[in-house]
């Protein structure tokens, strides 16, 4: 545990963007208005899978008020080049045709044309006049069906890559992954108890409140300016430039305030289309998605099929694990199977393990990252099997986890050996918690626990701090702020300089002003951009030491930066602000800057406790109490850490109990709205209690670990375990919605 006393870190200052957001003054993309701006409307495929035989836009183009129409023919041909998006990579040909279909539509909602007009109603009316002739093809939306030899084929030339070897005949499976450690057959031979089960999870969506929106202004000189809701302005710039085949430096992306992303606002959907409409019309163009567009045509997270086997000895040691995972990629290759494979056994030190994973294309929107992408599915499966092993071995669910929890030195099935990590400490905090030590009584009630893991990545971040004449700081960074990161980054700079959080004015820069910064994703911003701010502060201190030496007539080596941020040397001592003011008065302008690129994952572990009551007549689950415990390394702003734990947990609860893409017989989505796509309301969740564990991350100056993603991982498993303890019914399918749970309780003869 860290014991260092900090002044700013660990306190809870008011967030810098708070006033703007609570008063409605913050500028979101849909608020943007430029002179002469047109409204865009995207015409989308009504079919889940079809060939485009022809598109006739003439009638739409002739409509008064219409300024431009674009189709796939307006997009440049891009090659199968792989572009790195930070948290994942993308094939540009796929990215381009996902923005605008060329020869085929691969899912309902796939863009086929777009119109820019003087208002959105004219644009919509014009879009309705575009004649698209389709040849409807058979479609497939269940992952196992899509893997069959006779399944409708989405991509004619897609050959499975299996450990570097290409298959000879095309299929819907772009990748087969395989990880192995130890001797799995020997491991299972050693086991006294073996449990194997199949699990299924439905496609779910991030459900951010703000639909995707963009404003594009393509200037006569070839300069393209974009305002957008994105998790990464630099990746947005890169994707847009590559899809349009224009020089990167010609594109300026200004990130507006963002109403949630959770991984779903990294890929570009509207930007290239808006840019082409603007280029054709010579006017700025704004496009906003409807909620139905968001569900049908952005990037949900994979549905999955999993078959997992665990073996344990009588003393509770889990000795062998085997996992066979098939995840939806959606319409294009590149789903979340990789992290799924790496996370499946990430919480337990299992000597012998093997994992096979399949990325599978099918007629749903291309999947995207969603908060610990791929990890929630496998945790739902493995954490239930661990409970079952415990039950068979007559052990407590906590005891078996304590016995097998990974610690420093354990090797994960995909290779990495853990540095110091905090799962044991989380389980210990769980054991000590008031919640765990309060018995749960009453009929139809049950308690469940589950652990969870997410890597947390480093990647590239930059920060620059300009010192004002009064010693306050303007901090410029490039991480779009989706969780209060401006403040948590500013606090780290304030800490190193001996200032207050309010002395720092943090600003998220655009791609012309901020230094290169990777996406806001992978739970990386407070860790990596915070580190950049810390280093920028150190850079500033170095410069100030040199200048103070001149002021105080001594050598820079004689100047000391004290713990409170003050400078002393040659009998002088000044606080940061005083020294900065004197230097400014002496004609010195100070700018500190830093770029960092930490490569180490920050390894965020958590453990959750859920108490539920199940209505035996309807299968409806009421969550009575819920506690989320997580190792934050060091919580910079505890309120935001708590907010992340609560927010992630609530999303996990939604995934567990009600959220799912519901498909009609023709594989179109039946519930593309917030009425029937059921995210939890405030009446559906109790106050989520949180316990922050701080083990300190040795790879960060203040010990920060990423926290944003891990909390979504355990809830479905913790709730499934609680439901089992309440009803004696094992739920192996998500969501555990009332009709499904009721049905399972009917058919389970052992149920109460």
């Amino acid at each position, binding site marked *: 545990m860290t014991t260092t006393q900090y002044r700013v870190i660990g306190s809870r200052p008011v967030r810098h963007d708070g006033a703007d957001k609570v008063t409605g003054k913050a500028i979101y993309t849909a608020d943007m208005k430029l002179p002469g701006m047109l409204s865009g409307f995207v015409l989308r495929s009504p079919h889940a899978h079809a060939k485009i035989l022809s598109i006739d836009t003439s009638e739409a183009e002739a409509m008064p008020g219409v300024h431009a129409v674009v189709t796939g023919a307006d997009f440049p041909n891009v090659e199968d080049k792989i572009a790195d998006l930070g948290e994942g990579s993308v094939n540009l040909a796929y990215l381009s045709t996902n923005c605008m279909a060329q020869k085929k539509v691969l899912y309902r909602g796939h863009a086929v044309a777009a119109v820019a007009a003087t208002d959105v109603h004219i644009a919509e009316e014009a879009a309705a006049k575009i004649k698209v002739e389709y040849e409807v093809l058979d479609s497939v939306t269940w992952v196992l069906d899509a893997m069959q030899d006779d399944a409708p084929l989405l991509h004619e030339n897609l050959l499975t890559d299996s450990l570097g070897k290409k298959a000879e005949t095309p299929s819907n499976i772009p990748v087969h992954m395989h990880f192995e450690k130890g001797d799995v057959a020997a491991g299972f031979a050693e086991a006294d108890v073996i449990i194997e089960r199949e699990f299924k999870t439905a496609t779910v969506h991030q459900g951010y409140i703000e639909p995707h929106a963009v404003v594009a202004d393509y200037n006569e000189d070839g300069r393209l300016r974009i305002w957008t809701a994105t998790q990464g302005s630099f990746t947005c710039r890169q994707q847009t430039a590559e899809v349009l085949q224009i020089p990167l430096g010609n594109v300026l992306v200004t990130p507006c305030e963002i109403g949630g992303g959770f991984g779903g606002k990294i890929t570009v959907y509207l930007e290239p289309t808006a840019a082409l409409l603007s280029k054709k019309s010579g006017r700025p163009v704004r496009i906003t998605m409807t909620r139905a567009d968001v569900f049908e045509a952005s990037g949900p997270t994979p549905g999955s099929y999993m078959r997992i086997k665990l073996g344990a000895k009588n003393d509770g040691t889990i000795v062998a694990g085997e996992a066979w995972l098939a995840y939806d990629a959606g319409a294009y290759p590149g789903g979340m199977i990789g992290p799924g494979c790496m996370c499946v056994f990430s919480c337990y030190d299992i000597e012998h393990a093997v994992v096979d994973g399949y990325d599978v294309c099918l007629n749903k929107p291309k999947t995207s990252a969603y908060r610990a992408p791929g990890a929630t599915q496998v945790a739902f499966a493995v954490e239930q099997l661990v409970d079952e092993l415990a039950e068979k071995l007559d052990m407590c669910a906590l005891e078996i986890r304590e016995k097998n929890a990974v610690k420093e030195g354990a090797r994960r099935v995909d290779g990495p050996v853990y540095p110091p990590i905090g799962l044991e400490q989380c389980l210990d905090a769980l054991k000590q918690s008031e919640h765990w030590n309060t018995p749960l009584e009453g009929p139809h009630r049950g308690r469940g626990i589950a652990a969870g893991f997410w890597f947390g990545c480093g990647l590239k971040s930059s920060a620059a701090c300009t010192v004002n004449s009064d010693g306050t700081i303007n901090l410029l960074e490039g991480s779009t702020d989706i969780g209060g990161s401006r403040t948590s980054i500013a606090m780290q700079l304030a800490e190193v300089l001996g200032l207050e959080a309010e002395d720092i004015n943090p600003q998220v820069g655009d791609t012309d002003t901020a230094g290169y910064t990777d996406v806001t994703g992978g739970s990386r911003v407070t860790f990596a951009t915070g580190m950049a701010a810390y280093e920028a502060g150190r850079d500033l201190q170095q410069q100030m030491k040199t200048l103070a030496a001149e002021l105080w007539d001594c050598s820079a080596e004689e100047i000391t930066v004290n713990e409170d941020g003050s400078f002393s040397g040659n009998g002088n001592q000044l606080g940061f602000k005083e020294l900065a003011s004197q230097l400014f008065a002496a004609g010195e302008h100070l700018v500190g800057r830093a770029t960092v690129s930490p490569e180490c994952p920050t390894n965020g572990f958590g453990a959750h406790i859920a108490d539920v009551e199940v209505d035996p007549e309807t299968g409806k689950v009421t969550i009575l109490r819920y506690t989320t415990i997580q190792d934050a390394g060091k919580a910079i702003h505890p309120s935001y850490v708590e907010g992340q734990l609560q927010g992630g947990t609530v999303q996990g609860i939604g995934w567990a109990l009600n959220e799912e893409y*519901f498909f009609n017989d023709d594989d179109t989505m039946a519930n593309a709205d917030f*009425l029937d796509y059921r995210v939890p309301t405030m009446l559906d969740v109790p106050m989520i209690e949180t316990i922050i564990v701080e083990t300190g991350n040795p790879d960060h100056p203040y010990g920060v670990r990423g926290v944003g993603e891990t909390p979504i991982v355990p809830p479905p498993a913790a709730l499934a375990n609680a439901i089992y303890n309440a009803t004696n019914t094992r739920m192996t399918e998500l969501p555990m*919605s009332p009709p499904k749970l*009721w049905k399972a309780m009917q058919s389970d003869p052992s149920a109460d």
Partner: protein
Amino acid sequence: MAPESVSEVVSVLGEHGDRAKLLAGATDLLVQLREGLREADVVVDIKKIDEVTSYKYCEEDGLSLGAAVTCCEVYEHPLLSRLYGALADSTQIIGGWQIQSRASVGGNLCNASPAADAVPSLIALNATAVIAGPNGEHTLAVQDFCTGPGKNALESGELLVSIQVPAQCDNCGSAYERFIPRNEMDIAVVGVGSWVKLAEDGTIADARIALGAVAATPLFAEEASASLIGKQPSEELFAAAGELAKQIATPLSDKRGTKEFRTHLVGVLVKRTLTVAVERAQNK
């Protein structure tokens, strides 16, 4: 436009036919217009008409509820909410309080959703619709008012003026309950309204059960209702009535629930609403 009398509305409807749409709370109409589910040349606001926006209760005739009276006005009225428990239950769960301050019981009926929360309660309470049209006024039992999803018995040029709900005696009680997967922001997977009248000896003298969201229109469960008459209230009796009610349910399997689950819920909710209705009758 906003006419000030029923006859004016009738003449506007006569002039514009189906291209005129009536607006009370607008909580369904505006959404439907915006989503292109309905089209209108003329929107006629009926809230300037006294008999449409007011209500009165007397012990002989019962409740006369103007078609545009809002949900809030019903459940916030101490006497009405006590006498018409089922209607109070319904009006408290239609949307949030902002919606309830606009949405009307009459509008809920005219919208004719199979899952409308107020309609099973009105049927259970044996309510009658008062309809005005080119040929004057006539009445129709609420149980016959809805004719299909989004379709009602109003002829061209007609409007719903008010809903008459019979007077309630001291030994009457009613209740409505719906099942939804969440606790808010959902449409009934199944909704059931029940009304009972108890005899001196505590047996059930009369009863009416109505079902929502299990057929193209809300249903009066005649056989299930009749099965209760003359019997002492008991869990077994209510369960048996639930079984009878299930027989008339013909629900669909869709995003809100499977056919099997919905049919099962009919039994559960019949039992639960009868239990509450009898309790209310006993405690009045």
